[in-house]
C-alpha cells in the first residue's frame, strides 16, 4: 500500500509537470507574439516650425514633434511659448483659445494659462513645455533636457 501511494504521487507530479511544461510552451510564444515590436521612430531632439513673421501675435499653430503633437503660441506681446499639446488629464490634444486667452482642452474643459499652468478644470499637472529657439527668422522647438 505504501508503495502504491508513492507511485501515485510520483505519477501525479510527472503528469502535472508535463502538462504545466506543455502549457508554458504554448503560452510563451503566444504572449511574446501579442507584445507589439518597438516602432523604430527616430528620436527627435528639435524641429523647425516656421518663420517668426509668418505667425501673427495672439495666435497659435500646431506642429509635430516626433510622434507627439505640439502647440506653439505667440502671445499678444509677441513672445513664443511651446508645449507638448497633450492634456495632462486624459491625453486629449489641447488648442489655443484666442477669445479667452488660454490653452483649452475640449474633452473635459481643462484650461491652462500661457505658461502652461493648469488653471481650471480637471488637468492635474501643467503642460510639458518645449524650449523655443529663434535663429534669425526661423523658429525651432526642442526638448528641455
Amino acid at each position, binding site marked *: 500500500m505504501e508503495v502504491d501511494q508513492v507511485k501515485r504521487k510520483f505519477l501525479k507530479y510527472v503528469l502535472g509537470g508535463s502538462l504545466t511544461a*506543455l502549457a508554458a510552451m504554448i503560452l510563451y*510564444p*503566444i504572449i*511574446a*507574439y*501579442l*507584445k*507589439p*515590436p518597438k516602432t523604430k521612430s527616430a528620436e527627435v531632439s528639435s524641429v523647425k516650425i516656421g518663420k517668426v513673421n509668418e505667425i501673427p501675435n495672439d495666435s497659435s499653430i500646431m506642429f509635430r514633434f516626433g510622434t507627439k503633437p505640439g502647440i506653439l503660441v505667440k502671445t499678444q506681446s509677441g513672445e513664443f511659448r511651446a508645449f507638448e499639446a497633450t492634456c495632462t488629464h486624459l491625453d486629449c490634444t489641447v488648442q489655443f483659445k484666442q477669445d479667452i486667452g488660454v490653452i483649452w482642452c475640449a474633452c473635459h474643459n481643462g484650461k491652462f494659462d500661457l505658461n502652461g499652468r493648469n488653471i481650471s478644470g480637471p488637468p492635474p499637472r501643467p503642460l510639458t513645455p518645449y524650449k523655443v529657439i529663434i535663429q534669425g527668422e526661423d523658429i525651432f522647438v526642442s526638448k528641455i533636457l
Partner: protein
Amino acid sequence: MKKNYWKMFYNWFDERIQFEDIIQFAAKKYVPVHSHSIWYYFGGITLFLFIIQVVTGIMLLLYYKGSEDLAFESIQYIMTEVQFGWLIRSVHSWSANLMMLAAFIHMFSVYFTRAYRKPREITWITGMLMLFLAMGFGFSGYLLPWNELAFFATKVGTDIAGVIPVIGKPMLEFLRGGEDVTGATLSRFFGFHVAVMPAIFTVLLGIHLILVQRQGMSEPIGYENKPVTEKKTMPFFPNFLLRDLLFWLVVLNIVALLAVLFPWELGVKADPFAPAPAGIKPEWYFMFMFQTLKYIPAHILFMDGEVLGILLFSAAGLLWTSVPFWDRKTLRGEKTRFINYLGIFALVYIILLTVLGYLE
C-alpha cells in the same frame, strides 16, 4: 480549506446552470468499440485543427493589414519583426492544410461506414457544407499575403467561376469586386475569410456538434444489428475523451514540427503586370479539379470543355452531398456495394489526379 473554496465556487455556478443534466449525459454516454472505431477520432482532430485556425487567425489579425499596398509588407513584418510571428503564421498555414486532410478523411470514413444514413442526414449535409466552406477558407486565405502565387491562383480560381453559364459573369464580378483581380478583390477575400465564412461556419459547426451529441456515434451497418451482448463499448468520459486528447496532442506536435522545420514561405510580392511564374500550381486539395480541367478538350459537342468540367464537378458535389437521400438500400438496412465502388472510384480519382498534377 482549499477544497471548501472550490466547492463554494462550484456550487455558485451549479445553482445557476444546474450541471446535473450535463453530468448525467456525460456519464451515460458510451462510444462503440469495433474494428472501425479509429475513424471516430478524425472529426475531433478536424475540430482541434479548426480551433488552432481560430486562435492563430485572430492573432494574425492583430498585425495583418488587408490592403493592396500593405498586405505583403504586413506579413513580412509578422515574419521578421514580431516575436514568434513566423511560428504563428506557419502554424496557421500548416494547420489549414492538415485540417483539409483531416476533414477529407473524416468525410470519407463517414461515407464508407454509411454514418450519413437516417437519422444523420442533417449532420452529413452540414458536414459537407463545412467541407466546401473550408475549401473557401483555403482559397480566400491564400490570397491574403498578396504574393505572386496567391495573385495568379486567385485569377485562375475566380476565372473558373466565371465560365459557368448565365451566373458565371456576375459571380466573377462579385468575387473579384470588379472585372479584374485588384486590391478590391483582396478586401473582399479578407472580409469573406475573417467575417462572412467564420460566421456561417460557426452556425454549421454548432448544428453538426449538437446533432452528434444528441444522436451519439453511428455504428457501422454490419455491427449495428449484433446482439447487445456482443457489442463492446467504452465510456465517453473519461476513456474516449482522454484518447481524443492524446490524438490532439500528437496532431499539435505534427503541426509544431512542420511549422518549425518548414516555415511557410512568403514569396514575391504580387505584380499585376508581371507574367505568371512557371510551374504555378493550386493548393493540393484543388489539384484534382485543376488537373481534370487540363485534360478536358477545348470543345465537346456544342460546349466549351471547361464549362462541362465545372458543371460535372458541381453535379458530383451535389450528388455526393445528397447521398443520404438516394442511397435507398442503405436506408433499408441492406448492404450496397455500389456505394463502396463509387467511394473507391472518387478516392482513387482524387489521389490519381493529384499525383498526376504534381508529377507534371
